[in-house]
């Protein structure tokens, strides 16, 4: 059933591409229908397999001579991420309701991207996973380059090249693992059971991990993320932060840690306290958390604040993965979901609700606009989203980050201390942005008030309210009742830690 989420997305993309020009309304409703169907399938698939672990959806030989299978399957982790993709897709369509320029092409690329993302989360053949991963790269480029804003061609090309370099690294690792295993299969299960030599895993693991981690925004290879996010149109930056960065993190987990578990073993020597790839990547993740937060604090462009906050939050995911214990990795997966929803929400507020009306994202300009009075919905929406982003209890971010912190504490308390600093800075940059953009203390003069009265900002439309409700609701539900996701994630992480897939 879940496989249909892939097919209808690609079919939707094809129909959109063939749609005659000038049918913007039809195109929108069609995109919404496809995205909603995907979400419905995701929810139904999630609910239907509540107490089941690993489930094969379809398993057909694809290229028999090379042992490549068209194998779609799910476990708790992928089902959670499919759910996230559905949410992000629906919200993305809702927040791009006002796209008038080449509307059908926009949604064609959008749905093709969504289809590729669904594909990655559902593939259990390394090769198939890679194919879907690459399918997701190209639409991103066009979405940003055609419909983007600030320095869009630069941002788009940078993102495409970073992604492609990452995937080239993954491809090299894939070829190497396939040849070394000699099992003539690219199935994740077959490769995980192939007994790859430890020395091989030692060099192949970092290759594949870094290849995927580029897309997950790992410091210092994160630089595509802020420029890409800022350049992208709202829906694309929601998808970029919401699901595409998750592709990277998911790849790190699925193809990195699961396939090459011994790649994380100690080297046998240590240099300045770093004794394994695990230490290396954990430290990079911690640096990413603190660095992202610090840089976000200094930004003058509202969207850059959110862009760097994404880098910071993705650091939690990578750190969680590197804890290699039950609670830390569960937290990492939950953080993928949580960040997907919250970052989507933040980008939607900044990119769609605020920027499309004020036509500036400079905090200094926004300061003079008294948005809390003129756009109270935006102000309160950002308060809620900001609280979620800070990791206040009651929102999904709190549960996820807490679990990651506990997991990290078990491994090395110093990591937790450093991350704690990052969280405090996180509160500071959200606060600063909130205050500067919405709740400025400069009182408007009578003249300014008159002027503002004359140029009323466009009213909030229903798709914006609907999209906000969807994402904020998701974060709140998970925050208040995390079991709804943990019930799926925990068994999956447990089997993963107990020795790879199954």
């Amino acid at each position, binding site marked *: 059933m879940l496989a249909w989420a892939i097919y209808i997305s690609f079919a939707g993309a094809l129909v959109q*591409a063939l749609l005659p020009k000038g049918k913007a309304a039809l195109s929108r409703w069609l995109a919404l229908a496809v995205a909603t169907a995907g979400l419905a399938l995701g929810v139904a698939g999630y609910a239907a397999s509540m107490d089941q672990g690993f489930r094969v959806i379809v398993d057909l*030989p*694809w*290229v*028999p*001579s*090379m042992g490549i299978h068209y194998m779609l399957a799910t476990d708790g982790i992928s089902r959670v991420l499919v759910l996230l993709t559905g949410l992000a897709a629906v919200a993305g369509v809702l927040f791009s309701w006002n796209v008038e320029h080449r509307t059908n*092409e926009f949604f064609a690329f959008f749905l093709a991207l969504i289809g590729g993302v669904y594909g990655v989360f559902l593939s259990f053949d390394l*090769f198939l996973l*890679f*194919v879907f991963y*690459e*399918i997701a*790269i*190209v639409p991103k*480029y*066009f979405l940003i*380059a*055609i419909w983007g804003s600030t320095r869009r*061609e630069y941002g*788009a*090309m940078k993102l*495409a*090249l970073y992604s*492609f*370099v990452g*995937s*080239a690294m993954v*491809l*090299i690792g894939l*070829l*190497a693992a*396939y*040849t*070394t295993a000699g099992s003539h299969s690219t199935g994740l299960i077959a490769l995980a059971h192939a007994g790859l030599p430890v020395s091989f895993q030692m060099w192949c693991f970092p290759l594949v991990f870094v290849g995927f981690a580029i897309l997950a925004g790992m410091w210092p290879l994160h630089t595509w993320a802020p420029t890409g996010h800022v350049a992208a149109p709202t829906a694309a930056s929601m998808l970029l932060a919401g699901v595409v960065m998750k592709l990277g993190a998911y790849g790190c987990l699925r193809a990195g840690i699961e396939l090459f578990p011994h790649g994380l073993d100690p080297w046998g020597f240590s240099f300045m306290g770093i004794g394994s790839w695990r230490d290396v990547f954990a430290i990079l993740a911690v640096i990413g958390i603190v660095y992202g937060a610090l840089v976000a604090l200094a930004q003058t462009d509202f969207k850059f604040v959110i862009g760097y906050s994404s880098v910071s939050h993705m650091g939690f995911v990578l750190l969680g993965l590197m804890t290699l214990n039950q609670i830390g990795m569960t937290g990492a997966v939950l953080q993928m979901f949580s960040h997907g929803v919250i970052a989507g929400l933040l980008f939607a507020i900044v990119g769609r609700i605020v920027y499309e009306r004020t036509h500036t994202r400079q905090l200094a300009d926004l300061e003079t606009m008294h948005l809390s009075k003129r756009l109270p919905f935006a102000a309160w929406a950002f308060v809620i989203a900001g609280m979620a982003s800070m990791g206040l209890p009651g929102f999904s971010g709190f549960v996820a980050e807490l679990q990651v912190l506990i997991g990290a504490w078990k491994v090395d308390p110093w990591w937790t201390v450093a991350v704690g600093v990052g969280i405090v800075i996180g509160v500071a940059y959200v606060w600063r942005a909130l205050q500067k953009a919405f709740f400025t203390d400069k009182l408007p003069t009578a003249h300014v008030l008159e002027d503002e009265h004359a140029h009323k900002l466009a009213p909030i439309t229903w798709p914006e309210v609907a999209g906000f409700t969807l994402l904020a609701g998701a974060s709140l539900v998970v925050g208040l009742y995390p079991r709804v996701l943990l019930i799926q994630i925990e068994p999956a992480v447990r089997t993963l830690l107990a020795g790879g897939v199954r």
Partner: protein
Amino acid sequence: MNYAELFRITLPETALEVAALLILIADLVVLRKAALKTRAGVAALIGVAGCVAAYCAMPAQGIASPGGLTFHATGELLLATGGFAAVAQIGILVLTALTLLLLVGSDFTHHVGEYAAVVLMAATGGLLVAAAQDLLVIFLGLELLSLGLYIITAFAKRSGKSAEAAIKYYLFGGTAAAFLLFGFSYLYGIAGSTNLDRIMQSMYGWNAFHTMPLLYVALVMIVAGLGFKVAAVPFHLWAPDTYEGAPAPAAAFIASVSKVASFALLISISTAAWHAFSNPSSMQQTMGALQSHAACGTACQGFEVSWSLILAILAVASMTLGNLAALVQISVRRLIAYSAVAHAGYILLALAYFSGTSRSADAVLYYILTYGLTTVGAFGVVAVVERATGSDRMDAFLGLHKRSPMLAAVMLVLFLSLAGIPPLVGFWAKFNLFAAVLAVSAGPVPFTLVALAVGFSAVSLYYYLQVLKRVYVMPATEETAIKTHPVSTAVLVAIAAAVLLLGCFPALLDGWIQSFTLTR
């Protein structure tokens, strides 16, 4: 060899020649007064019919018995049938038919009949090259192919560029042919035979040990000659000029058919080298030679080792220079030319690490056939755009998605396939090729080379995106619609659909190639 057998084996070549003559007769006698469009249509139609006839006339269609034309006196093979030679020949026929169909929508010459006839004759040379197992037949086929290519390059008589490209191509080609012949003569001197298998076998003997330096000279000469045909660095200098100056259908032919034939020849040579080693009777000879000359050492594998080394060097040089030079091109044709150099580099890598099983040959054929198909399509789009805008500069492609959504979509599919983005066929070709290299040897050196190749395909995305950026992203300078001839439209859409379909179901083409080669 008797004449009946010769006639039977060369029936496909004969069919093409007959078609060429029919075209000339139809064009010069029957249709003297007809409009250019009619003449082009008839010429293309007869040409395609000739290709179909040649396909039907191919001996041993079931390929149950790979064999061919042999000398009765010695039992040496002259022309192979079946196996990968048949795959390459069918590929040549299909690509020739497609390039002939591109002629219908073009207007670079009034002498369409002669053009089509020369194309068919060149394709005959291609068929011979793909099947040849003897140095003399190889040379004959290559010259037949090359002469045709020189002529069609110069066919746009009103264009100075075309003449310049042709003379450059001709001079380089002549030099390369001289090198090749020189190398062949040395090889004959070492081995005492012109038959590929016989030459390879004698490489393991006593004789070869004493002539190692001579063998290197011969191989370098031969590689210079063949490297020219496949446009490998440093013998690639003709490619950008020829691709830029030749009329588009001719450039498509050069970039596809000639490449397929030349790589088929390289497969023949590599396979022969392997057979000599794995063939039981020759193995005995080798063992005998080993025992009688204990000092043999490394020289015993003389051909394999030196051949691989030279090809690997060319491969690295080609993919490096091709990809880097393509980054700075502003003419789309030159960009395709440099990317062709890069693609040749990838394929040479697989030829350098060639396996005795059919795995490597399959992978190379898969690559070159799909690459040829994609390039024909790319030149088809370039031809249409060029006629509408008068230029093949990248800026001529500005706003193509508005001027002709069909051309833009075809361009998107083809260029992404060339860059190796799944699920398009170019990705599978690359994956298959690199997996074949690593299947032969997974040592650090081949692995590094494969990593380099994969890295360079990441680089290549940049220049392909530069073109696609103009097609889809950047604002149009002109918005008048571009009209495409229905035949061109059909060909281009069919090619794009094939690239997509073969990419989604890679087992189709793979299985088809294996149905020929696995019996060997």
